[in-house]
C-alpha cells in the first residue's frame, strides 16, 4: 500500500476485537484451566482490566503527540537510533507472535479437521491469504473485519447457545479455582492476551483523533473481554476442570459435542469455517503492523515489495517449533506470560521519558 487511508472507529474496534477473541479458540483455554482451574472466566476479566490500565498509558502517550503513530513517537522521544531499535524490537515480536498464532492454528487444524495434510500445505494457503490481505492494504483489512465481525460474533454465540443442554453449573465450582492468590497473579500476567490493543498505537495515524483512540481502545478491550469470558464460562460449564486442562482445543471439542437430536449434530466444520476467518484477520493484522513498523524504520514508502519477503520469513518462523507439545507448553505459555513486557511496557517507559524531556507534539487539527 502506498499510503494508508483513514478509517473510523467501528472498523478499528472490529479489527481488534477479532484479533483478540480468535485466540480463545485455540490452546489458551486449556492452559488457563490448568493454571487456575475453574476460575478462568472471571480471571480473564481481571486480565482485561489490567490491560485496560496499560492501555491508558498508551493513550496518554498518543494524546501527547496527536496524529502520530507510535514509531514516530519513539523517534521523537528517544532519538533516531534508540527509537528505531525499540520499534524494531516490537516488529520482531509481532512477527514471532504472528508465527506462533499461525502455528497453533495449523496444529489445531491438523488435529481436528485436516489430519493428513502436511502442515506446510496448510501454511502455504494461510500465507497466500495473509499476503493478499496485506497487499490490499490496511483499509481493506479493517473493512473486511467490520464486514465479518457480526457474523463471527453470531457464530460464537450460536455455538454457546447450542451447547446449553450440556451446561452443568456445578462444574464451575469450586469458585476460586486453585486459590485466590494464584488466580490474581496469573490473571495479571496473562494480560498480554489483550496485547493486540497495542496495535492501536501503530495504526494511530489512520484514526481520526485521540478521542477516537480512547473509544477504540477501551471499547475493544471491554468487548473482547466479555466475549472471552463468555466463551470460557460456557466451556467451563461443559467440561469439568479435570478434562478441560487436557483438551487441545476446548472450543472445538465443545462444538463437536453438540448433539441436539438427529440433525443438529457433528456441527463443528461450520464453526471451523467461521474461526478460520478470525484467524486470518488476526494474523494479517499482526503481520501488517510488523510491516508498517519495518517500513517506517527504514523509510520505505511503498510496502508492496516488502510483503512477499516478509511473508516468506513468516513461513520460516512457523517451522521452528517441533510439534504441538512445543507450541503448547513452551511457546504459547511463554508468550502469554511475558508478552506484556513488549506490548505494554515500552509505551509506559516512553511516556515517562517524554514527560521528563518535556517533549510534546504539535497540536494539530485532527
Amino acid at each position, binding site marked *: 500500500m*502506498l*499510503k494508508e487511508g*483513514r*478509517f*473510523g472507529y*467501528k*472498523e478499528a474496534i472490529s479489527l481488534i476485537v477479532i484479533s483478540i477473541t480468535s485466540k480463545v479458540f485455540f490452546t489458551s483455554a486449556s492452559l488457563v484451566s490448568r493454571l487456575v482451574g475453574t476460575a478462568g472466566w472471571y480471571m480473564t476479566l481481571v486480565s482485561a482490566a489490567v490491560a485496560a490500565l496499560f492501555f491508558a498509558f498508551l493513550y496518554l502517550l498518543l494524546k501527547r503527540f496527536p496524529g502520530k503513530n507510535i514509531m514516530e513517537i519513539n523517534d521523537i522521544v528517544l532519538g533516531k537510533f534508540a527509537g528505531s531499535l525499540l520499534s524494531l524490537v516490537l516488529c520482531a515480536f509481532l512477527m514471532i507472535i504472528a508465527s506462533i498464532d499461525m502455528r497453533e492454528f495449523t496444529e489445531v*487444524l491438523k488435529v481436528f*479437521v*485436516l489430519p493428513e*495434510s502436511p502442515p506446510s500445505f*496448510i501454511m502455504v*494457503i*494461510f500465507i*497466500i*491469504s495473509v499476503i*493478499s*490481505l496485506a*497487499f*490490499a*492494504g490496511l*483499509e*481493506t483489512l479493517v*473493512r*473486511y473485519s*467490520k*464486514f465479518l465481525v457480526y457474523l463471527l460474533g453470531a457464530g460464537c454465540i450460536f455455538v454457546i447457545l447450542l451447547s446449553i443442554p450440556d451446561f452443568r453449573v456445578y462444574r464451575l465450582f469450586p469458585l476460586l479455582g486453585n486459590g485466590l492468590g494464584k488466580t490474581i497473579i496469573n490473571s495479571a500476567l496473562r494480560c498480554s492476551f489483550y496485547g493486540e490493543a497495542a496495535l492501536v498505537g501503530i495504526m494511530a495515524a489512520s484514526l*481520526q483523533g485521540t478521542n477516537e483512540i480512547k473509544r477504540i481502545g477501551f471499547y475493544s478491550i471491554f468487548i473482547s473481554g466479555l466475549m472471552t469470558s463468555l466463551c470460557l464460562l460456557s466451556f467451563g460449564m461443559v467440561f469439568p476442570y479435570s478434562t478441560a486442562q487436557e483438551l487441545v482445543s476446548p472450543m472445538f471439542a465443545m462444538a463437536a459435542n453438540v448433539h441436539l437430536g*438427529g*440433525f443438529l*449434530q*457433528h*456441527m*463443528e*466444520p*461450520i464453526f*471451523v*469455517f467461521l474461526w*478460520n*476467518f478470525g484467524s*486470518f484477520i488476526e494474523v494479517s493484522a499482526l503481520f501488517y503492523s510488523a510491516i508498517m513498523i519495518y517500513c517506517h524504520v527504514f523509510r*520505505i*514508502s*511503498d510496502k*508492496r*515489495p516488502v*510483503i*512477499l519477503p516478509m511473508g516468506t520469513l513468516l513461513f520460516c518462523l512457523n517451522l521452528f517449533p517441533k510439534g504441538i507439545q512445543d507450541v503448547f507448553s513452551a511457546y504459547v505459555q511463554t508468550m502469554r506470560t511475558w508478552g506484556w513486557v513488549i506490548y505494554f511496557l515500552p509505551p509506559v517507559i516512553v511516556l515517562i521519558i517524554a514527560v521528563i524531556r518535556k517533549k510534546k507534539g504539535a497540536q494539530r487539527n485532527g
Partner: protein
Amino acid sequence: MLKFLKKLFVYEEPSSSDIEMGYEFLEGLEESMEWGEKYGAGKGLKNDLKEQKDNKKDRSGQDEQAGSECRADMNDRESKHPKILIPKPAGKATVRKSRKQKGNSKAEKTETRDSGKEDYEEHSRKVSKSLTENLDYLRKVFHVPKNQDVVIREFNVAHKIPACVVFIDGMVETTIITQFTLPQLMDINPFRGFEGGCALDFIEKNVLPVHQVERMSNFREIIPEILSGLTIILIDGCDECLAMESRGFETRTISAPVTETVVHGSQEGFTENMRTNITLVRRIIKNENLVTEFITVSKANNGRAALLYIEGLTNPRIVKEVKRRIESINVKYISGSGMLEQLIEDKSFMIFPQVISTERPDRVASFLMDGKAVLICEGTPFALAMPITFFDLYHTSEESNVRWQYGTFMRLVRLIGMLLAALLPGMYTALILFHQEMIPTSLLSSIVVSRAAVPFPTIVELLLMEFSFELIREGGIRVPGVTGNTLGIIGALILGQAAVQAGLVSPILIIIVAVSGLGSFAIPNYSLSLGIRIIRFFLIFFGCIGGFYGISAGVTILFAMALSMKSFGVPFFTPVAPYASHNTDTIIRAPIYEQKYKPDYLNAGDENQMGDEPRGWKAEVKQEEQ
C-alpha cells in the same frame, strides 16, 4: 500479469493515480454536511463554473475571430441558465500543445488529450462567403455524387440570394424543411425590412420559424451535425451557417425493459435513441437543475454520450472526473454503453462492475436524485451510472415501490439466493470430500448409494454438470422467442434427469447445480450475476483443495480484492464496510418516510431529503391529539 509481478518485486516511487473523493469516514450527519459544504457543492462549484467560463473565453479568442460575439453570447447563456446545452461540437477538448504555447498554467483543469485531433485539423476550415466554395467542399467531404444519402438542395432566398439546404436523407423530418424552412425562405415578403449584407442574422431572428437553430462557422462542427440529422442552411455571402434541429429518424418505440422487469413499477424502458432516453428521464425529474452535457466519445463514428447530473446536488468532482475520463478516450469506434463502461472503469481486473448499467428510467431518476452522474450513450438502451456501491447492484426498483415488509422479504430472499449461487457447489464439494462427518447419517447413506453408480470422482462430476448448465444457459439465449428462456431451466433439468438415469451423475448433484443456478437467476444485475458465476468456479477449486479451510481462504482472497475496489473514489462496500451514515436501506428496508438522508458517501449538497415529519398528515393528527 507482468505488471502484477512487477508490483510484487520492484520498488516504485509512490504516485497517486486514483481519484480521491476525499471521503472521510464521518459518522455524524453534521460532520458530513460540513464536509459536503467544504469540498462538495457550494465552494467548489463556483470555482468550477468560473474555470469553465474562462476556458471557453480563451479558446474562443484563439480559434475563431468572426462570430465571437455569438460565442460570448452563448457562454453567458450557459453560465446564467444551465439548461440543456446545445450540443458541443466534436473535439472541443483542450489541446495541450496550444496550452503550452499560450503559457497558460491552468492545465490542471482539463488535462485531456485531444480525441479528434486529426479531424480537428482536417475539417478545420471556416465557412467561406462564397456558396460555391462551401458546396464544393461539402461535396468533396461527403463523396457526393457517389454518396446518394446526402441531399443538397439549392434555392434562392427572397428570389435573390443563392442558398442551399444540406441534410441527410432519412435522418431529417421532412416537414420541417418542406413546410417550415423553404417556403419562408423562398418567399419575398418576410424580407421587406432587409437591408443587405449577410442575411443570416435577419433570417435567424425574423424569418425562420424553426424552434432550435445554431450558428456555426467551422466545418469541423458542421459536418458532425449534418451526420446527426440536423439541416444546414448555407447562404451566399455569409461566412456562417445555420444549423436547424430537424431530426426525425425511425426509432424503436418505447417498450418494457427486457433485462429488468418488475411487477409493481413503470414498464417503460430505454431505447437506442439518446434523445428519447433523455426525455424519459426528464419526464420523471422535472427539475431545472438537471443538466445534460454532450460529449463525443469516439471520433470515427462521432458517437456521443450525454452526461446527466443535477447541478448543486451532484458532487462536481464526480462530474469532473467522468468528463476527464471520457474526453481522454482515444478509441475509434464505440458501439454503445458496454464498451464505454469498460473504457472508463477504475480497474478492469476486478470481477465486480464499477459502473452500473440499467435499462429503466425510474432507476436512473433515483440515481440522479441520489447524487450520481449518469451517462446515456447512443446505440444501446442502457444508461451508465457512477459511482456505485455493491448495494446499488443488489437493489431493484421494485423494492421501493412496494411496502417495506415486502421489500425486506424480497431482499432477504435475494441475499440467500446470491449466497447459494456463489457458495453452494463449493461447500458441497468440501463437505463430500473432506467433512463427511458433518453429514447426518441418513443423508450420508443416500449420498453413498447414489454415488455408487457414478464412475467419476466428485469434482469431475460437478464440473461436468456446471459446464453443461452454463452451456445450456448460453445456448438458451440464442434460441429465438419465448422458447429460449424455458429451454434454459427445463432443458437443464431434463438433461440432468437423463444423465442420472444413464448413471453419469448423482441426483443430489443435479439439485445442487440447479439450486445454485436458480440463485444466480435471482441476482438483478446482469454483470453481477456473471461475476458471481465466475466466483463460484473459483470457490469450487478452493473447496476441492482444502475443504472448508480452503473455502475460507478463497473467500478471504476474494474479499481482499473486492473490498479494496473503488468506484470513482467511493469504496465498493460503502455503507457497510467503511461505515457511513445511511438510511436503513441496505438489506432491511425501512419505510419510505424514515429514509431521510441522502447517501453520505457521495458528499452531495443538500443532505436532507425530507423534513422532520415527511408525512404531514400524521403531524396534523398528532397536533390534533394534543
